[in-house]
């Protein structure tokens, strides 16, 4: 079979372009143990760094004695804030407009805070010597509750004393960071005052942690001869890190090369800048040797960025018939000791204002107060776009609470309030323009797939049986219809430290018709090398297998803001398509010239340009590529390449319908997920297999968060869940079977109509699991109970409802 006898469909299939369940090209190395992670990097003369961390959550640092540590053979240096101060590096800026101590400057604000940095010939010496650094502390009162912190006389941030203006407006109290308001307060309160029904509830989304399999780390290597710093690290945003390092170190940006090698999961944990990076860079500059720092698991859980910790008080107004008329939300956000949230600059509470969800709510008001406490800083988007999972959990709980108040079926309540397909593009009351959606179709498909009516009948029978003493197990049906906002974002309102949140792709086609593409993003397991090659394959007709994808080296990749917030496909994916489309006109000119016809007389046909009306006369992209490297057309510049910096006109709004069916034992609190159905609409689907993998992974993380995972503190500020003994990571034993499904509503503004999917399952999964627990106990009077729903807390729900006799 040759090119002339193959049908266009067969030629398209050979490209393995968009829509193909192409196997992940990355897995060849990952499944053979041939990945190259930060800790695999070994450089000549490399030293190792280890931190001395505070055992106290709040204490004054009276003195630091390094003598015993420095006396250990193999110890090269011990750095403290005093050593960094002359360089101005004892504090560093955070992504949220605050500043953060690199090493304790007079006091510590959370357990695990970095106090000193020991540099030694190997990691064992460094760890041993770190234990010998003698730090004298003077304990201070500990504040772990944000509501208490706002009332307390104890000043956490003495460096900010007297500052009534923060990065995001006025500060109301010495432990207050910001107030962020969206929507129409007066109109919303007027609606609440006149409504038939108002449901009110406090919805807490507990503190948890992304806990990637690979912890954070870096290798800093300063070449004193060339003056060039190479920084390898677990960076989700390598270019932004390069700019930050340049700004805070004073090194010229062209003399800094940041490389993100293979990354073992990020989930938001690897977006920010950490003390370990700064100390390693300083140590390498001082010693002239490469310095490696890699966190252990405890350090990761207790010091690098946490997620959530939002106390969301909600009021939702509706008519007797269940039509929602208004939504009010006040959130108290626990940010820990420093405000190191990773959000676009103008959004101190991220996109929490997506909290009207999938519903047509005429008026709404949102206020968020950020608060300092004696906990670790962070507040990153753990497998979600900035605070979207908090917003989705809030509205999906409030819908359930309203359904109880109205004595209505929660599926029907959702249906009558969904934004209708014909209302898109839809302007939400809190300021977003939803690009596209068809929620009713997705909802009906989901309910039918699980036989919703049948499940409710079974549940009714179960309740009868329970009351008759025939069973001790309840059945919960957890419903969720979520709408995300991802793909940050339009430069007009999205930037980080002043860097617009565009992204980029550069494509070079080689003479023999293969290609390399470089992007401003960085895969941490998403499979970019697989999917972005598929976009290019479909756009310019070269087989995906012949396209190399490279990310993460700032010396070679075009500038981009990195991978988090489901932004890679919406932004860099768009840049990829646009770069490919920039190549096509030149290819068309070359083809027409070679075919001796006018440019307008050839047309695109899968992998070639063919003469209109004479498809047997054509030039394949492969032939065109080769011609491009000779003098294809007299006077035409040789080569075939393009670069695109894509500034998206809008966010994308993926959505989905998730249903969880859960069995709960009221006597032990044990739960079992009997069925989990996940319908995702992420617009155009690039690789169905990767989408399915993302949904499986994301729902499993959602299961962890909803059913057990948390960063818990005791009243002394001790992290009680600092190891994997206590921090719940599901294994195959706890992980249920998932059914995935989809509808396709393309984004109208994205070049290929894709919306992004990697984080949807976490956003939709958490409320689905939590609602299942609540739904099981609803007939017995439960309205709201805080996550995580571990066995003990479920047992307590049953006990509190008098179900233990």
């Amino acid at each position, binding site marked *: 079979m040759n090119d002339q006898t193959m049908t266009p469909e067969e030629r398209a299939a050979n490209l393995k372009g968009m829509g193909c369940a192409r196997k992940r090209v990355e897995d060849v190395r990952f499944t053979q143990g041939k990945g190259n992670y930060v800790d695999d990097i070994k450089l000549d003369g490399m030293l190792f760094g280890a931190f001395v961390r505070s*055992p106290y959550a709040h204490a004054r640092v009276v003195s630091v004695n390094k003598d015993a540590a420095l006396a250990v053979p193999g110890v090269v240096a011990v750095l403290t804030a005093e050593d960094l101060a002359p360089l101005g590096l004892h504090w560093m800026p955070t992504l949220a407009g605050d500043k953060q101590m690199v090493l304790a400057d007079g006091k510590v604000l959370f*357990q695990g805070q970095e106090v000193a940095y020991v540099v030694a010939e190997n990691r064992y010496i460094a760890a041993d010597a770190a*234990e010998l650094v*003698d730090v004298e502390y003077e304990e201070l009162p500990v504040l772990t509750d944000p509501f208490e912190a706002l009332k307390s006389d104890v000043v956490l941030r003495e460096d900010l004393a007297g500052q009534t203006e923060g990065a995001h407006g006025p500060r109301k109290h010495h432990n207050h960071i910001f107030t962020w308001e969206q929507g129409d307060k007066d109109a919303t309160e007027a609606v609440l005052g006149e409504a038939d029904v108002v449901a009110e509830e406090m919805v807490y989304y507990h503190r948890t942690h992304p806990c990637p399999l690979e912890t954070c780390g870096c290798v800093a290597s300063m070449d004193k001869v060339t003056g060039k710093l190479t920084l390898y690290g677990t960076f989700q945003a390598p270019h932004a890190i390069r700019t930050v390092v340049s700004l805070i170190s004073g090194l010229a940006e062209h003399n800094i090369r940041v490389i993100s090698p293979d990354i073992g999961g990020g989930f938001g944990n690897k977006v920010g800048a950490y003390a370990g990076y700064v100390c390693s860079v300083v140590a390498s500059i001082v010693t002239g040797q490469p310095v490696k720092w890699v966190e252990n698991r405890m350090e990761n859980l*207790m010091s690098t960025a946490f997620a959530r910790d939002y106390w969301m008080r909600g009021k939702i107004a509706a008519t007797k018939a269940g039509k929602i008329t208004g939504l009010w939300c006040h959130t108290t956000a626990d940010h820990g000791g420093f405000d190191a949230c990773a959000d676009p600059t103008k959004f101190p509470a991220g996109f929490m204002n997506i909290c009207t969800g999938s519903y047509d709510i005429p008026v709404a008001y949102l206020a968020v107060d950020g608060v300092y406490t004696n906990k670790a800083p962070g507040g990153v988007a753990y497998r979600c776009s900035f605070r979207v999972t908090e917003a989705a959990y809030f509205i999906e709980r409030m819908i359930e609470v309203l359904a109880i108040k109205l004595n209505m079926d929660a599926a029907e309540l959702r249906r009558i309030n969904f934004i209708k397909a014909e209302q898109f593009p839809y302007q939400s009351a809190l300021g977003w323009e939803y690009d596209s959606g068809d929620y009713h179709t997705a909802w009906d498909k989901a309910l039918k797939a699980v036989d919703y009516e049948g499940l409710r009948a079974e549940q009714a029978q179960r309740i009868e049986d329970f009351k008759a003493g025939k069973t001790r197990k309840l059945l919960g049906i957890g419903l969720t219809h979520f709408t995300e906002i991802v793909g940050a974002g339009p430069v007009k309102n999205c930037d980080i430290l002043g860097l617009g949140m565009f992204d980029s792709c550069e494509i070079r086609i080689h003479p023999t018709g293969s290609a390399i593409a470089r992007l401003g993003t960085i895969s941490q397991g998403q499979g970019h090398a697989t999917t972005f090659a598929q976009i290019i394959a479909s756009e310019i007709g070269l087989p995906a297998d012949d396209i190399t994808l490279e990310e993460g080296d700032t010396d070679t990749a075009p500038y981009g803001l990195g991978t988090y917030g489901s932004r890679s496909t919406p932004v860099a994916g768009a840049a990829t398509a646009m770069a490919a489309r920039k190549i096509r006109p030149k290819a068309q000119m070359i083809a027409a010239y070679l075919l001796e016809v006018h440019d307008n007389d050839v047309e695109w046909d899968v992998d070639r340009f063919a003469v209109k009306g004479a498809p047997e006369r054509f030039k394949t992209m492969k032939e065109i590529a080769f011609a491009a490297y000779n003098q294809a057309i007299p006077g035409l510049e040789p080569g075939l390449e393009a670069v695109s910096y894509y500034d998206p006109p809008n966010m994308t709004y993926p959505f989905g319908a998730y249903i969880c069916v859960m069995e709960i034992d009221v006597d032990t609190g044990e739960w079992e997920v009997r069925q989990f159905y996940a319908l995702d609409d992420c617009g155009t689907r690039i690789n169905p297999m990767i989408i399915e993998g993302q949904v499986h992974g994301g729902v499993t993380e959602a299961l962890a968060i909803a059913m057990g995972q948390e960063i818990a503190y005791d009243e002394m*500020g*001790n992290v009680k869940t*600092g190891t994997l003994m206590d921090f719940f990571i599901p294994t195959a034993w706890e992980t249920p079977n998932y059914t995935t499904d989809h509808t396709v509503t393309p984004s109208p503004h994205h070049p290929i109509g894709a919306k992004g999917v990697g984080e949807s399952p976490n956003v939709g999964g958490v409320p689905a699991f939590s609602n299942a627990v609540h739904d099981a106990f609803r007939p017995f009077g439960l309205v709201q109970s805080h996550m995580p729903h571990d066995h003990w807390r479920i047992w307590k729900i049953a006990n509190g409802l008098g179900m233990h006799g």
Partner: protein
Amino acid sequence: MELSDEIRISAPRDVVYQALNNVDVLRECIPGCEELTQASPDQLEAKVVLKIGPVKAKFAGEVTLDTSNAPDGFSLMGEGKGGAAGFAKGGADVTLTEDGDETILKYTAKVDIGGKIAQLGSRLIAGTAKKLSGKFFTKFGEVVSEQTVS
């Protein structure tokens, strides 16, 4: 964390009380005790090596005694610092009741623990504390009985 227990010791109350205030006896009985010195009549300084789960560290501590209730009992307050391993602080009330030739020792202790031992060892602390206090009183019972016999 709260601990309490009741131990019967085959020695009269006065002997038990004096032994509890005898630095040499205590040094011999406290598991992992490397140093114990009497800084003042109501103050002791100690260096103790403790192992809780995967954390092994030397704790330097100070203990203040309140003997106003002697010989029916006494109270103590203390604090120990284990550097990177963390810290512990707390207090205990001890009562001694005569029962013929024997003495019943009851104690209740409240201890707060912070740092790495609180994180890594949280599952093990209660068990370890019980084991250590068991070791202490077994040894203490032996030493005091020997003294009584001799």
